[in-house]
């Protein structure tokens, strides 16, 4: 079995020694805030304005993973998301107005309004290759995409995101095994928010840890702090390097917590309140912004400006999305078979 490498939580004294440029750190923070503000807006558009309908799963609280990972990837890398994919879309620079439009089912959406919230993180221009609503199903797909990357000799890796619940699907086991046998450049990222809908990890996963299960396929496995974007960034950098050397695939388990329910209407009362409180005290954005301000990577003023710029971007994007019409039913027939 491969060793499991733990990439610890970044300490204040450590930060500068890591050699990560300030611009990179600021960009990570910006992406986290963007993902947060995006979802807060989605909640408002859904619950207060009914502009978004259908199932909707928010990324609130998990921003450190998508943002940290995104900064460790290149524009050529491929990303496969899930129904909880808005955070992946916006940290991967998918146009905000298009993601909003998709959530509203509008023709200018990332999927022309045909996918909805669960598929909004599909935007092939940014190599967001698909967002699936079937738990675990993107894992074998990543194996095949990795095979194609290898065969074509592309300078890229394939990253598949999924939750702790997905590791109990047959697809996880079949997909990771295949990728390992083929040694393809795929990085499997388990965003372990500790719940699969209402099922806590401990009642769904028999292995001691999810990382151990992955390591059993004899692939390099990392455990990162899912509430610390630098920890995730470092794990992802490392994993990407291994993949590019031809030694992939790799696995990253990032432990985090979703701030709210599984879907927008889930009150999540199956979670113990002290646990919810404990994790609320570990808000990844509050912690990371404090770290950066304390370490003088950016000033309070710069952080404030960053947030208001993002707010403005969001407002403008919503306005644009709302102006987009629904697709015409008559066009759907032409969408079924590719030309």
């Amino acid at each position, binding site marked *: 079995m491969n060793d499991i490498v733990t990439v610890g939580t970044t300490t204040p004294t450590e930060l500068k020694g890591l050699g990560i440029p300030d611009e990179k750190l600021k960009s990570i923070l910006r992406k986290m805030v963007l993902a947060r503000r995006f979802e807060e807006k989605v909640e408002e558009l859904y619950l207060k304005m009914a502009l978004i*309908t*259908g*199932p909707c799963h928010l990324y609130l609280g998990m921003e450190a993973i998508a943002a940290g990972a995104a900064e460790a990837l290149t524009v050529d890398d491929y990303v496969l998301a899930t129904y909880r994919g808005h955070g992946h879309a916006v940290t991967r620079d998918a146009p905000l107005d298009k993601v909003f439009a998709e959530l*509203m*089912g*509008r023709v200018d959406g990332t999927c022309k*309004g*045909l*996918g*909805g*919230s*669960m*598929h909004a993180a599909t935007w092939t221009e940014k190599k967001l290759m698909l967002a*699936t*609503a*079937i*738990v*675990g199903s993107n894992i074998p797909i990543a194996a095949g995409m990795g095979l194609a990357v290898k065969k074509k000799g592309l300078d890229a890796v394939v990253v598949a995101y999924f939750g702790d*619940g*997905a590791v*109990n*699907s*047959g*697809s996880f086991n079949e997909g990771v095994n295949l990728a390992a046998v083929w040694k393809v450049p795929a990085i499997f990222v388990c965003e372990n928010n500790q719940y*699969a*809908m*209402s*099922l806590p990890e401990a*009642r*769904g*996963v028999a292995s001691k840890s999810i990382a151990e299960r992955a390591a059993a396929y004899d692939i390099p496995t990392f455990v990162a702090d899912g509430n610390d974007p630098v920890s995730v960034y470092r794990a992802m950098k490392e994993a990407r390097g291994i993949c590019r050397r031809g030694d992939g695939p790799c696995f990253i388990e990032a432990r985090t917590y979703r701030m709210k329910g599984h879907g927008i209407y889930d009150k999540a009362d*199956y979670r113990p309140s002290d646990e919810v409180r404990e994790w609320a005290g570990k808000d990844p954005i509050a912690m990371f912004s404090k770290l950066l301000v304390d370490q003088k990577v950016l000033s309070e003023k710069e952080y404030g400006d960053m947030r208001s710029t993002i707010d403005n971007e969001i407002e403008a994007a919503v306005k644009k999305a709302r102006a987009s019409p*629904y*697709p015409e*039913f008559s066009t*759907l*027939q032409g*969408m*079924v078979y590719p030309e």
Partner: protein
Amino acid sequence: MRELTYLEALNEALSSAMERSNDVFLLGEDIGAYGGAFGVTKGLLQEFGADRVIDTPISEAAIVGAALGASLLGMKPVAEIMYMDFLPISMDQLVTHAAKLYYMSGGQLKAGLVLRTQYSLGRAHGAQHSEFLPAWFLQAPGLKVVAPSTPHDAKGLLNASLKEKGPVLFVECAMLYKSKGDVPEGYYEVPLGKADVKRQGGDMTIVAISRMVPEALAAAERLAEKGIDAEVIDPRTIQPLDRKTIIDSVSKTGRLLIASDDMKTGGVGAEIAATVFEEAFDRLKAPLSRVCSPDLPIPFASPLEKEYMPSSEKVEKAALELAKW
């Protein structure tokens, strides 16, 4: 009589079955404390405990396989697959194993499991969370397929399904969960394979499935005002299909309209149409008519989904055309 919702009727059938027999147990995702994604199993964990209301991981193949395994030792598992769209993941266990075991074992093995699922068409759930796929299971001899349309039938059909010795796929409809109707308090069964004439009429036969039953009934009321008297038949079970009731009705009316949420090509309606053509061609006064979903993945945006879906209005329109013959 009391009124219950479709959802409450199902919950009652499950809870009383669990009371009657210790062999009955439930398994599926989020069916415990959460009460099931739609609330059908609400309260059952508190009543019967975690040994009999078992929350499973997201492992559809294992859920159905495990239910099958337990059934072979004479237990009566009721497995829940959250959305019908996730059934294909367990297709091997359900179709290649459960459905055929009795036959292949020369009658030695009996897979008496009930597999409950639902379809969410009409709720903006998108193309991977809305599908109604009954026809996929018509080519699995040994598997019975049930699709109730009323609270009364939901309870009675579930009771009857629980008595079956072979596997039953029990397909609920999310749009019907809140619909209300009379439900007797005590135990009763609605037999599998027996259609129900939900409305008598002499001018045309409308065979409607699941959600389309109330839609067809509403259409029939409007048609009556226009002087067209439609008979509405709810097969209730899709496999076995009560061909006789349909043929008898068509023999009387001479006209057939089929209304179902599944797709037109290769759908349940195609099977019903072929049956009527085979057995009652000489009694048809008009070409038959089908109101189903177009051969498209389900669009997400609500206005498009609405256009996509079969509806009472579409049934009425097709019926008016049919009546012209």
